[in-house]
């Protein structure tokens, strides 16, 4: 990560946000028919649609777990979601994000209620402007709730980062590209447990402390948006 551009000016960021301010958000639940559950989440220029299928039988059978179900996540960039068209098909980056998403979501579902089953969470990035894994998890968590999967809580996700040696919340594209640290987290809003944590870049523990605080606050705000979307659908269904 280089630092060519001026990313902070008079305490404001390139899009005018304060250091601890999220991009504008939009959320929706139940947007698809065929899936068991679905969700949409947008943070600034990053948009993701998620669908959930299951619990359903896991194939091939010898991968089934007798005591509990599993969650399988697929994270995928639409070919037109990035500047240079992305060739369809799995990428190394996408595989890794699928795995950490599984780690983030598995802790909130009562998987022991679904022995031998799989719950499949598909997250399709329609537009990518940084923070795609966080937005994907936010959409995925909405979809899981929309599917009526019994859960211990809600997972909400956002990233903190460091630009010009300053901790800030929710990097957008240019900030991510030219910034110093990217720290995406996901949190169980009920318990405060952090269920996804990744970090690139150089930092010390003191800065890390500050970035974690920013990100945790951010997750709380994301959760509000997710809850609104779920309430609206819940209202619709009545």
């Amino acid at each position, binding site marked *: 990560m280089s630092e060519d551009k001026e990313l902070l000016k008079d305490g404001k960021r390139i899009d005018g946000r304060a250091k601890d301010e999220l991009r504008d958000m939009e959320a929706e639940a139940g947007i*698809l*028919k*065929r899936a068991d559950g679905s969700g949409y989440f947008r943070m600034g220029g990053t948009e993701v*649609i998620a669908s959930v299928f299951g619990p*359903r039988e896991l194939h091939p059978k010898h991968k089934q777990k007798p005591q509990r179900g599993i969650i399988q996540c697929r994270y995928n960039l*639409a070919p*037109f979601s990035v500047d240079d*068209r992305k060739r369809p098909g799995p990428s190394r980056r996408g595989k890794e994000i699928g795995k950490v998403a599984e780690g983030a979501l598995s802790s909130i579902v009562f998987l022991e209620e679904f022995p031998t089953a799989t719950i499949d969470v598909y997250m*399709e990035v329609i*537009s990518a402007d940084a923070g795609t894994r966080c937005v994907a998890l936010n959409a995925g968590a909405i979809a899981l709730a929309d599917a009526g999967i019994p859960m211990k809580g809600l997972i909400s996700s956002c990233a903190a980062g460091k630009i010009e040696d300053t901790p800030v919340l929710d990097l957008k594209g240019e900030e991510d590209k030219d910034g110093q640290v990217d720290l995406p987290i996901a949190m169980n809003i009920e318990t405060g447990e952090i269920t996804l944590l990744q970090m690139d870049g150089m930092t010390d523990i003191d800065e890390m402390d500050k970035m974690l605080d920013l990100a945790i606050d951010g997750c709380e705000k994301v959760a509000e948006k997710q809850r609104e979307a779920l309430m609206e659908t819940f209202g619709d269904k009545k």
Partner: protein
Amino acid sequence: MMEITEIEEEAALDNIKSGERIDDRDLKEFRDIEVVTGVAKKAEGSAKVVLGDTKVIVGVKFGLGEPFPDTPDEGMLMVNAELGPMASPDFESGPPGKDATELARVIDRGLRECEAIPLEELCIEEGEKVWKVMVDIHVLDHDGNLMDASALGAIKALKEAEMPGYEDGEVLRDEGEDFEVLKTPIACTIGKVDDKYIVDPGLVEEEVVDGMVTVTWTEEELCSLQKRGNGGFQKEELLEIFELAKEKSSELRKFI
């Protein structure tokens, strides 16, 4: 999750035979249609088509490439469709299967045969560098008739597209100008049950019709045909279907 049951299939069939539809439409009536553009911000052009509960996003990207040896002075058009597992319990991860490939190729032919895209104007340096126009069909929710929804989305996204600038081997995505599209091919799929024709078959209907024909009309001419499904058609039936498709495609054309 909606798995199709035998009971639903029988209901769909009985309805059509008595001149009705399971979703209370007329035989020759489309489901509700909505077309929204600019839905994928990183795409040079994009359109979301909602056809009943079927939802498709089509995105257009421009890139640079080397032309095909036999057309050194022409740009390239690529149409790709992904029927990803998010859109239906019947779709699996992996490279495009027969259904996705047919979908992409029928839409590709519809655009190519009528020369909707002026490929010869997309040449930058003969034999060396040309524009690639990449049309990606991304299915979000499959409730039937992906063909008509995707074709509509593709031509809409192309018509909305801003073509990026070019300088010294670089694509300048900030400098766009309107992209020229010469024709408006519209695909319209007609299904048959006995002597009844239906427009815009839904998911369950696709399973029970005797067969379907996807007919692509430009403003004046037929430019592509694709019979789909297992049944067959008498010649006279086909001619009726072509006329019906022409008539109905004008309803879809209003969304362009």
